[in-house]
């Protein structure tokens, strides 16, 4: 039988009753790329901000349009600016994009297991993000950099489809200028004017400076990318137990009641979304779980 993992160090969800929303309003929205935007939300009643741990997500409900799990992408030390980065792929995410400043939405959470930043102390940390997968990892990067002295090398490897799909450009430029963070970016398809790496993100693993035996790796992106990245990290000598992945499944209740997000014996909402790699490795190779 699966055990429910330890509770994260972020705040408990406000309620485990999926009908309990908190009313928020959209403060600001800005476009990151052609299909991805970031929103900043504020509680309608002006109440205290809700703390969260890097890797956790909220359920966002656009009234009458549907509800979706979206990771928190802001700085955990500034929870008052509740920030989410969303890729508009379908009805609910597109209705989030249509929300105007001041308009309301429902929020419940934060839910889910966080990235194991405490356990990684003293280790090198390799953060591997693919596409929108950088959003759930950004809070982890903020926290790693806040506590920079607690870690060895910190490496960010980021892959996207093309240069125009790169998220958080200004921030990435700042991170690339830091001497205490190695940031490597690659694209699958180069366009004119791109002078960076071309190729899938797993090809960056051999180029980064870290000591595999003392490395904790955090991976988020499409599942195929996760599989190949974990394999490449293992090949380089990272212990599988030190590799963590964040998985996505469609969700409804987000609190372990409905079974919608089932992944083999696991519920992604309750047992994840962040899992240690050995826990899900076998399942990732199976076609239907």
């Amino acid at each position, binding site marked *: 039988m699966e055990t429910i993992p330890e509770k994260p160090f972020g705040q408990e969800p406000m309620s485990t009753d999926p009908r309990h929303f908190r009313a928020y309003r959209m403060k600001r929205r800005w476009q990151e790329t052609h299909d991805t935007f970031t929103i900043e939300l504020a509680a309608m009643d002006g109440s205290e901000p809700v703390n969260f741990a890097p890797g956790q997500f909220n359920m966002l409900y656009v009234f009458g349009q549907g509800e979706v799990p979206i990771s928190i992408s802001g700085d955990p030390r500034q929870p008052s600016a509740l920030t989410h980065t969303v890729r508009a792929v379908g009805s609910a995410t597109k209705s989030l994009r249509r929300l105007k400043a001041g308009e309301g939405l429902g929020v419940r959470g934060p839910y889910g297991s966080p990235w194991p930043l405490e356990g990684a102390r003293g280790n090198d940390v390799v953060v591997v993000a*693919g*596409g929108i997968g950088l959003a759930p990892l950004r809070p982890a990067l903020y926290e790693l950099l806040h506590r920079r002295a607690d870690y060895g090398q910190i490496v960010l490897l980021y892959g996207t489809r093309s240069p125009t*799909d790169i998220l958080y450009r200004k921030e990435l430029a700042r991170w690339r200028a830091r001497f205490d963070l190695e940031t490597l970016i690659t694209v699958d398809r180069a366009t004119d004017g791109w002078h960076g790496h071309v190729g899938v993100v797993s090809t960056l693993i051999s180029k980064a400076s870290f000591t595999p035996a003392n490395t904790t790796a955090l991976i988020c992106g499409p599942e195929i990318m996760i599989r190949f990245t974990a394999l490449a990290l293992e090949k380089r000598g990272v212990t599988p137990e030190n590799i963590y992945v964040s998985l996505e499944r469609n969700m409804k209740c987000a609190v372990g009641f409905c079974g919608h997000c089932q992944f083999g014996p696991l519920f992604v909402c309750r047992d994840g979304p962040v899992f240690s790699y050995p826990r899900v490795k076998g399942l990732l190779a199976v076609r239907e779980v």
Partner: protein
Amino acid sequence: MENLERILAEHPFLAGMEPSHLEILVGCASNVRFEIGQLIFRQGEDADVCYLLRRGRVSVEVFSPNRGPVVIQTVGEGDVLGWSWLTPPYYWHFDARALDPTLAIALDGKCLRRKCDEDHGLGYVLLKRVATIIEQRLQATRLQLLDVYGNHS
């Protein structure tokens, strides 16, 4: 020569190779350097070199009449550039251009082929290493073609 042998031994492609084999390979090797933007080889030209990259980055490009040069991959420190010396008709299939000041060991393709024909033990060891790298590149290229970041239904 001794220095070149050390550099060869330190390159990931040849790491752990028998000293006797390294000694043979040194006879085919020379140090080369490319400036930013310099064309290293061009599609259709004779492919008679294998480059072991030591520093810098190189783009592998294909020229498209509509789009101009399209970068399909970049390789860098520790990588191997160029397989076409291995199989007939020994022509480059792509262009390669230095993106940074680039240092490499150039292994003469004709020399390599001759040495491998003379010493099948060396040939086997070398081909196994080349096959491993080609397999890795093929996997990476397949992933790239999958367009994993697309909006899949």
